[in-house]
């Protein structure tokens, strides 16, 4: 399968991506979990959100370097991400996908990129730490500005309503019913 290369800040070329595409991403990303989203809503987004990428991640950081940085469950941010899309954020990176509501909000303007859950050492080996915001929220919840080099990702939700997760889960439901609840 061919790999599409992406660079930040993202532009409208992300509209050409389709659920199932493989991409490799280079450039700047910002980590944010629940607390950081709430703080950004209360105060302001501490970086330029135009074409930016939010990484749902609480990394382990030590001595100015990223030690481990895999994705966290994105669904926790379902109700917290609308303002970021309105501000120009063009992609989320995380695991497990986001809700149908978020998929609607992303239509025509953003994509969801899946990074393999748990692959924190691989991510860390391709990351350079560039800064931090809201450090008082603690290591996991602060916003870390990170430069990534060829991070391997899968387009799991595209900007046209395509959603790999819901496709797979619909078919899992059917398979479960036919095995355990026949007739």
């Amino acid at each position, binding site marked *: *399968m061919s790999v599409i290369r992406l660079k930040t800040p993202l532009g409208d070329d992300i509209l050409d991506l389709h659920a*199932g595409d*493989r991409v490799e991403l280079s450039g700047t990303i910002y980590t944010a979990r629940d607390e950081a989203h709430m703080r950004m809503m209360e105060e302001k987004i501490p970086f330029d959100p135009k074409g930016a990428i939010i990484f749902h*991640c*609480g*990394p*382990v950081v*030590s001595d100015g370097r990223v*030690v*481990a*940085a*895999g994705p*966290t*469950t994105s*669904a926790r941010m379902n109700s917290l991400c609308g303002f970021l899309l309105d501000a120009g954020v063009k992609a989320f990176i995380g*695991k*497990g*996908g986001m809700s149908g509501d978020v998929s609607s909000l992303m239509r025509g303007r953003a994509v969801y990129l*899946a*990074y*393999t*859950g*748990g*692959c*924190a*050492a*691989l*991510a*860390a*080996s391709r990351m350079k730490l560039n800064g931090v915001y809201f450090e008082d929220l*603690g*290591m*996991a919840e602060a916003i870390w500005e990170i430069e990534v080099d060829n991070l*391997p990702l*899968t387009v*799991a939700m595209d900007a046209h309503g395509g959603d*790999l*997760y819901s*496709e*797979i*889960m619909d*078919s*899992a*439901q059917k*398979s*479960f019913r036919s*095995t*355990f609840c026949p007739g």
Partner: protein
Amino acid sequence: MYSVLCQILYPQNPVQWKNILQGEYHCINWIKSVNISAVIPMLRKKVADAAEKAIREAEIKLPVDFIRAFEKTMARETREIAKSEYSNIVENIRQAEKLGLPLCQDTGLHIFYVTIPPEVPFTEDIFLGIRDGVERATESIPLRPNAVDPLTRHNTGNNLGIETPSIHVSPGKKFTITAMPKGGGSENMSRMAMFLPSEAGKIKEFVAETMLISGGRPCPPVVLGVGIGGTFDSVTAFAKEALLEPVDEMTGYEQEICDAVNNLGIGPMGLGGDTTCIAVKVKKGHCHTASLPVAVNVQCWACRRATVEVEL
């Protein structure tokens, strides 16, 4: 000598001292520690050293039996997206070992299984030593501080807290500490239920349903620890202890449950595929004639555990 002691302690209750003689290891060890055992110098520090070592090994390198089972599972996968998820996982396992970094940023909440031989006194030093080991490992590896108060959500900062790490002790030939750091994502998807004695046939469905509810959230491909029998509390312990068993072998029953889960097609990370479950491990215990407790402990692909012998 014990029997004399027990008769002194429980003169009116021969059943109780008989139980102590037959099975109540802790009590016997208490008696031994009070009466006959030698004090082991620096026991707390020795335990801390072993615990820290076990945590480090578990966080950075996956067990050999797991790697064998994982490779077998990966070889069966046919879906392209799933294959690229596997190649990320393989590269991650390689990088973690090469760089000496934790496999996953969720370095887990800490669980320990300790075996104590007869010559080691069962004292508080064992518990304190393990806590020291966790605190040190949090700094030295480093680990993400994950332990928080359940209601205020205040983070203790050192992975220690009330009743955490949880420490399970049993008698053994060697003095060993097994570290099992457990991630939150997969633990969150774990379930238990009380079935009717006539419903043993529903266990497979319950396990498959657990993964149907979970989807990609527990980071599949998973290992599923299934506890069957016992009581409300012990069945969940069985489910977790099942994860300590070698995952590169399954009984026919375990394989049958594993196949049912894989039929769902959830695949690595919920992105679809032939392989959702690497192995199912069942641990059972006798239960009340009116009961059939069942528990499923979901373990993500980072099936972390390591055993270290305490050097005395």
